[in-house]
C-alpha cells in the first residue's frame, strides 16, 4: 500500500446498468401501451395461485401475459398457461432475483403491442428483489396470513419499495391465528399510506377489489401518458 494514496471521486450508483436497462424497458412498455405489474413475496406465499386468478379475471376482457421467475423447474409456467396464452418461465439457476436484463431477454421475441397487461412474478424472496428495478409500473408485495404478521418488520425494504400489498390465504387466517390489525399496522409502519388488499385466491374473496384497482391504475397511467404526448405536441 502506498504512503500517500490519491482519492479518485466517482459517485456512481452500483446498479446503474440495471437502472438504465429498466428505464429503457419502461419506455418500451409505455410506447406499446402495456401495463406491467411485478409480484414479490417469500416462497410459498401464494403468488402463483393469486396470479392464476388474476390472469383469468383480467384476461376475460384484456390481453394478458406473464413472465415467471424461479430458481428451477417450469411448474409455475405450466400452471399459468391455463389462464394466459403467453407465459414464459425464467429459470435463474442460482440467482435469487430477477434483473432488468433477464426480463429484456425473455421478452425478445414477444409482440408487446399485442398486450394490455404483463405480469412478472419474481423469484420467491423478500430480500434481493427490492434492489432491482424491472421497468414495471407497479410492484405488488404479497404476504400470506399463514406467514405471520411480522414479515413487514423483518423485510422493511421490500415492503417499502412496493406500491401495494396483498394479504393472501385469508381463508386460513383464523386457523393460523393471524392478527390482521397488527399486520396492517406493520405494513403501514414501513410503508406509510400503502394500499392493502385482503384476498383468498382459493375462495375468490377480495379479488374484485384487486382487479378494479389494477384496471384503474392502468387507466390512470394511460391518461397521464396521453396527456404527456398532448403537451409535447
Amino acid at each position, binding site marked *: *500500500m*502506498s*504512503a*500517500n*494514496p*490519491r*482519492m*479518485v*471521486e*466517482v*459517485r*456512481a*450508483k*452500483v*446498479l*446503474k*446498468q*440495471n437502472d438504465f436497462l429498466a428505464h429503457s424497458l419502461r419506455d418500451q412498455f409505455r410506447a406499446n401501451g402495456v401495463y406491467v405489474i411485478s409480484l414479490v413475496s417469500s416462497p410459498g406465499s401464494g403468488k402463483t395461485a393469486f396470479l392464476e386468478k388474476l390472469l383469468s379475471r383480467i384476461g376475460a376482457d384484456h390481453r394478458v401475459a406473464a413472465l415467471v421467475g424461479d430458481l428451477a423447474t417450469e411448474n409455475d409456467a405450466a400452471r399459468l398457461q391455463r389462464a394466459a396464452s403467453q407465459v414464459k418461465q425464467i429459470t435463474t439457476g442460482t*440467482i*435469487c*432475483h430477477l*434483473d432488468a436484463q433477464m426480463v429484456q431477454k425473455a421478452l425478445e421475441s414477444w409482440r408487446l403491442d399485442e398486450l394490455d397487461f404483463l405480469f412478472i412474478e419474481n423469484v420467491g424472496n423478500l*430480500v*434481493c428483489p*427490492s*434492489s432491482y428495478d424491472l421497468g414495471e409500473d407497479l410492484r405488488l408485495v404479497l404476504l400470506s396470513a399463514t406467514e405471520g404478521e411480522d414479515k*413487514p*418488520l423483518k423485510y*422493511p*425494504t*421490500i415492503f*417499502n*419499495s412496493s406500491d401495494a400489498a396483498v394479504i393472501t390465504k385469508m381463508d386460513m387466517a383464523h386457523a393460523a391465528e393471524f392478527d390482521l390489525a397488527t399486520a396492517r399496522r*406493520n405494513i*403501514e*409502519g*414501513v*410503508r*406509510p*399510506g400503502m394500499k392493502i388488499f385482503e384476498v383468498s385466491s382459493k375462495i375468490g374473496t377480495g379479488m374484485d377489489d384487486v382487479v378494479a384497482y389494477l384496471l384503474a391504475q392502468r387507466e390512470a397511467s394511460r391518461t397521464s401518458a396521453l396527456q404527456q404526448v398532448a403537451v409535447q405536441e
Partner: protein
Amino acid sequence: MHELSIAISMIDQITEESDRRGGLQVEAVHLKLGVFSGVDKDALSFAYHLACEGTPLQGSRLVIETIPLVIYCPSCKVERTPDSIYQLCCPQCQTPSQDIIRGREIEVAAFEVAA
C-alpha cells in the same frame, strides 16, 4: 444473497473507471450504503473480497460508509431521521412519511489509488 451480484457489479464498474483513467492500481474502494438499500454490509464485504480474486482489484480494501434513513416530514417541513426503520414517521411529531431523502444508496463514492 444478492450481495455477490452487487459486488460483481461494483468490481466491473471500478475496473471500467480505473481503465478509463489509464489502468490505475486501486487500493481501496469507498462505498455509501443506505440502511434501507436492502444490502447487508457484512455479506457485501465478504462477497467483495471473494469476487475480487483474480481481478485487478484483488487485495483492495472495501470501506463502507453507512447512510442513515432520512425522511422529509411534511408537517415540520424538515428532513429527519426516524427513530426506527420500522416506523417511517417523524421522531418529533409522529407524522408518517414515505418521502425518503436518503438511506437507499448503493453508491461507489470514490476509490484510492497509489500516488
